[in-house]
């Protein structure tokens, strides 16, 4: 009988292979929860620090340049905390000349438009500038320029400077209310981007 017992015990052990070894080492099991997400490409321009830039009275009222465009100083508008969250963005500036609302035809020697340059800076390595080239009669008042690519995500105050106010052919300016527009666009650089 003793011989029988030993035999059975040995068989029992053989029936559950590997467990004896595992017992000594301990056992772990790992589960995994994967988290997937996405952030879309986004640009936001800050609201302009001024909704309207008023140059006031634009013509000299005395002196040798009476009736012609006066020396108008530079104007600045800031678009604070503008950002793009991706590499490869660019600023585009569209400038529209100031044109008089008076619809009557322009007389020889006169102009009803004031041209100027709008320069957007503090985004990429060099600024983006557009200069309007309206004719004396106010035709073709709009010009557009797109700047160099900003190669990394960026958050910054975009500064827009208006300068170089001139009348076509430096003509006399017809009386009236003049208005123009500056449009700034921030987005993926054409032909580039991430």
């Amino acid at each position: 009988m003793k011989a029988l017992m030993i035999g059975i015990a040995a068989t029992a052990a053989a029936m559950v292979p590997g467990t004896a070894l595992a017992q000594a080492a301990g056992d772990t099991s790992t589960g995994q929860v994967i988290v997937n997400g996405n952030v879309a490409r986004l640009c936001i321009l800050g609201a302009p620090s001024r909704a309207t830039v008023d140059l006031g009275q634009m013509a000299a009222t005395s002196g040798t340049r009476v009736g012609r465009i006066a020396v108008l100083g530079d104007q600045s508008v800031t678009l604070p905390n503008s950002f793009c969250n991706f590499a490869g963005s660019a600023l585009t500036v569209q400038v529209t000349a100031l044109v008089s609302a008076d619809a009557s035809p322009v007389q020889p020697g006169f102009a009803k438009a004031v041209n100027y340059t709008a320069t957007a800076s503090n985004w990429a390595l060099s600024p983006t500038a557009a200069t309007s080239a309206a004719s004396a009669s106010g035709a073709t008042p709009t010009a557009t320029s797109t700047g160099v690519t900003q190669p990394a995500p960026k958050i910054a105050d975009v500064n827009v400077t208006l300068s170089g106010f001139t009348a076509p052919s430096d003509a006399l300016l017809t009386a009236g209310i003049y208005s123009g527009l500056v449009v700034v666009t921030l987005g993926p650089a054409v032909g580039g981007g991430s």
Partner: protein
Amino acid sequence: MTHSLILAAGAFVALTAGSAAAQSATDTKSFAVVGNVPALCSGGTIVGTGSTFDLGVLIDTTTGLLRTDLAAPPKVLTGSFCSSRSTITVNATPMAAQNFTAAPPAGFSRTVDYTATASGWTATAATFATGAGSNPGAIQTRPTAFSGDINVSIGTFATNGGSGLRLVSDTSYLGLVTVTLAVAN
């Protein structure tokens, strides 16, 4: 086990459905630029010839009467302009003796009338006759802005009171012509 996974997926869909973004990779902002130019006129300057019509001796020394051949070259106001619709007005005062200021005796006059004309600005020249009772043509309107030369001339001289009167002797007879440009509404 499967049940709980599906529930979780359903909840996930509800979470993201409301997050459809109105943002995009491009943003645009703009601002207006305004200014004004006042209506103004500038009368220009007389270049070269001085601002005096010098007529010289006014009388025919044999008759003592006003010369009939008085003439002076016109003056040009250069560089005049108005940036809007405007009126041109001519005003003239008769040439009067400056020293002999008392009423002249019978048979004599101390005043010479004439007509002043400003042309080149309006379709119809503005004229002022110093001897006329009224001068409606002295003010003319230009409906557009304009830049150009204004020609100022004088003529049609006549002795005030009658061509038979003689002029009193005076070294200085003086009249004044004024041309005014003004913006019109």
